[in-house]
């Protein structure tokens, strides 16, 4: 026999459940513009029918439904899209930081323009041609000196500016690493909270949202792989568990665990720099040598992992120490600095070689005497006041006009002695040869090319790199945006939809309330209207 009040109970449950649904609808609307918020859905479940099976069950024709209850409040989210999103965001992080670094480099190099290195070399060439026409003209000599100064200054300006941006990149790298660690710690805290809530049978949706938001952010900094560790106790089947975050390389190989869900600990990421000791014994940071995750060291050569951190390392530069002790430098900025050094070194050396073979004005004793036969072999350029050695490193920032030339333009060797006829004061043949250094074939690094072509090659390489970085930034932005759109399509709050739901739940609530009125009338009939016949 069923209870008299069963109908009341069923209607009451209906009201409660619909009210919960309305609350959730309200929460969705309230969070329509919250970043990282995933819309929530109330999973309603019919309560157990009456009578349930058992020895004492009453003999009634069928099972009666007993109403509804809220089973769980769940996020509407597609985790596959999260994986896709993070993968694209990861590439975007890498290419974006690389494109930024290259953009700055392009701005510094400033080619093609009327103010770049190519132009100052052209002007220097011109001044030498002018000198060849009129070698005794003090004005032409001064112009050669000033244009030579301009070439040296341009080299060192470029090198200094590149180094300063490289320094900024290092700061950015340090900040990014700190950000990774800060996110890792926040993730770990969320893991802890989740592990305390889930065993009680709740779904901590807001914590899930916050965790996903952090993981999205982390994915732009480093290539991550997330796996979940289910909570024990009374945890619901649909609960997500705690998250383990691993840093992986581009082939998916695990490099190290950043956030460990099981031990609830964080292994912080750090970047190790090659230590450089200068002549005064001061130690400073050089290029990146390796990466550490917790106590696990990873050689930088194995850290092929996309993301902003990796992009910054590639731009700032990293070095590998080979087994024979030699150090190889990689990366955008070291490469460019190295190219400029090689160029300045080769140019300076070749120019000096031609210059020291020429005759300066002082080599001609006077117009009546026979010219001097011993020339003084003056260098035009020096590296910070010292003659060119065998090492090209730092040449671009050190190259300058030699003291002799700085002291007197008479020391510019414009004349040339071909070994047959002694030159006269109006001889400008060496100036022509000096002007040919720019266009002559030189061995620059390992290639035989002209200075002009070598420089065009440097700029071309940079341009292609920058173009590639920008194209891939655009591509990954488009892909990221399209995944984000699909993700939004699943998870974002639609106000129209919520309104529709609201009406639906409201009507159900009202109808449940009406059921109570009905029950009231029935009970009124039973209690007050029955068994009083004849009264």
């Amino acid at each position, binding site marked *: 026999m069923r209870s008299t009040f069963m109908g009341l109970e069923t209607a009451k449950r209906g009201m409660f459940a619909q009210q919960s649904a309305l609350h959730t609808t309200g929460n969705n609307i309230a969070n329509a513009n919250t970043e990282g918020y995933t819309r929530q859905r109330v999973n309603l479940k019919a309560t157990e029918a009456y009578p349930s099976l058992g020895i004492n069950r009453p003999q009634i024709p069928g099972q009666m439904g007993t109403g509804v209850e809220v089973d769980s409040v769940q996020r509407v989210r597609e985790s596959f899209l999260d994986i896709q999103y993070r993968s694209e965001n990861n590439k975007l992080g890498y290419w974006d930081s690389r494109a930024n670094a290259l953009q700055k480099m392009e701005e510094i190099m400033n080619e093609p323009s009327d103010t770049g290195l190519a132009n100052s070399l052209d002007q220097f060439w011109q001044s030498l041609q002018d000198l060849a026409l009129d070698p005794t003209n003090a004005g032409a000599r001064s112009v050669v000196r000033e244009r030579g100064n301009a070439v040296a200054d341009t080299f060192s300006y470029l090198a200094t500016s590149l180094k300063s941006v490289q320094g900024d990149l290092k700061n950015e790298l340090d900040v990014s690493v700190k950000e990774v660690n800060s996110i890792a710690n926040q993730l770990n805290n969320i893991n802890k909270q989740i592990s305390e809530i889930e065993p009680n049978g709740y779904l901590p949706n807001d914590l899930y949202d916050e965790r996903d938001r952090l993981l999205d952010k982390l994915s732009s900094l480093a290539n991550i792989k997330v796996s979940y560790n289910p909570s024990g106790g009374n945890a619901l089947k649909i609960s997500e568990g705690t998250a383990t975050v691993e840093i992986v390389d581009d082939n998916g190989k695990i490099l190290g665990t950043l956030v460990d869900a099981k031990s609830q600990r964080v292994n912080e990421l750090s970047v190790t720099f090659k230590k450089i000791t200068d002549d005064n014994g001061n130690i400073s940071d050089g290029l990146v040598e390796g990466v550490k995750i917790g106590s696990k060291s990873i050689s930088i050569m194995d850290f092929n992992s996309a993301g902003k951190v990796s992009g910054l390392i590639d731009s700032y530069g990293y070095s590998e120490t080979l087994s024979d002790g030699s150090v190889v430098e990689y990366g955008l900025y070291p490469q460019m600095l190295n190219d400029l050094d090689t160029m300045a070194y080769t140019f300076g050396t070749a120019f000096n070689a031609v210059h020291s073979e020429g005759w300066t004005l002082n080599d001609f004793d006077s117009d009546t005497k026979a010219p001097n036969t011993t020339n003084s072999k003056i260098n035009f350029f020096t590296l910070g006041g010292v003659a060119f050695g065998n090492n090209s490193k730092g040449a671009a920032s050190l190259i300058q006009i030699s003291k002799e030339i700085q002291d007197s333009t008479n020391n510019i060797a414009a004349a040339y002695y071909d070994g047959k006829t002694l030159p006269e004061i109006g*001889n400008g*043949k060496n100036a022509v040869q000096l002007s040919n250094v720019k266009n002559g074939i030189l061995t620059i690094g390992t290639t035989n090319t002209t200075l002009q072509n070598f420089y065009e090659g440097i700029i071309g390489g940079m341009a292609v790199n920058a173009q590639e970085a920008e194209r891939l930034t655009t591509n990954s932005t488009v892909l990221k945006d399209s995944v984000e759109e699909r993700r939004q399509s699943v998870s974002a*709050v639609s106000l129209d939809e919520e309104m529709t739901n609201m009406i639906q739940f409201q009507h159900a609530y009202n109808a449940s309330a009406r059921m109570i009125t009905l029950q009231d009338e029935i009970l009124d009939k039973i209690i007050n209207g029955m068994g009083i016949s004849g009264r």
Partner: protein
Amino acid sequence: MRVTQSMLANNSLRNLSKSYANLGKYQDQLATGKKINRPSDDPVVAIKGMFYRTNLTENEQYQRNLSEAYTWLENSEAGIEQVTEITQRIRELVVQGKNGSNSPEDLNAIGVEIGQLKEDLIGVANTQVAGRYIFNGEKTLTAPIGDNGFTTDADGKKQYTFTQNTSSYNVEVSKGVQLKVNVNSQNVFSKDLFNVLEELESNLTDGVGILENGDQILEKLDMHIQTITSERAELGARYNRLELVDSRLSDQEVIANRILSDNEDADIERVITDLTIQESIHRAALSAGSKIIQPTLIDFLR
């Protein structure tokens, strides 16, 4: 696909900023007149741009070198012309002096004129252009005939110091091409010529009344006139060559400028057209945006 208001709003914002980026690109092109603003916009254009600029600078320099070459050749030409005139006049005077009807005073007068013409010749030989002696090879700071440094010998003849340098003064007129722009001054102002003139002058002014060795002197003079003429002819030939180089460089300049422009200059008509199209797209995007942000269902429910 389920679409929400926030997605629509995001999309229309994204479209607008994309549209702004394009507008910015055309604005840059119009403002700078260049197709590219940084090498990565088009690496090939950038590299070519650098190459053509250098070409143009070199061309400009060679043209500057040419004007120097013209200065030398034209001044040398003018000098030789004067020398020719002077030597012709001397020849006339010699022919006149050979004539038996001259009195000693007449001959003396002729001798004095020849003396003056000789001085004139020295003046021409010591021509300076922009402070440089153009008839002394590469020895540009020394006068070929040191007229201040003369000594007088036992016979009362002036002895000049001849320091003529015969090296060629070269100017690079295009890559690797050197052009000689001076004349061999020994072919024009040789010591021998001055010896002849000295002899002539002393023979005329010695008061004897006849010109001794007149025929021999005339013969020597003719020989010198011939060398001067042939030197002048060679100079003319080099001048022609210079003009050829000049016209070639001018052609190259025009071509280089055009290529440079083709390579990197923006096609203004096209940019303006593109800009106009982009502008209308932008307007459409704006208007779409304003339509998309519509009243929601909430507005229609009671």
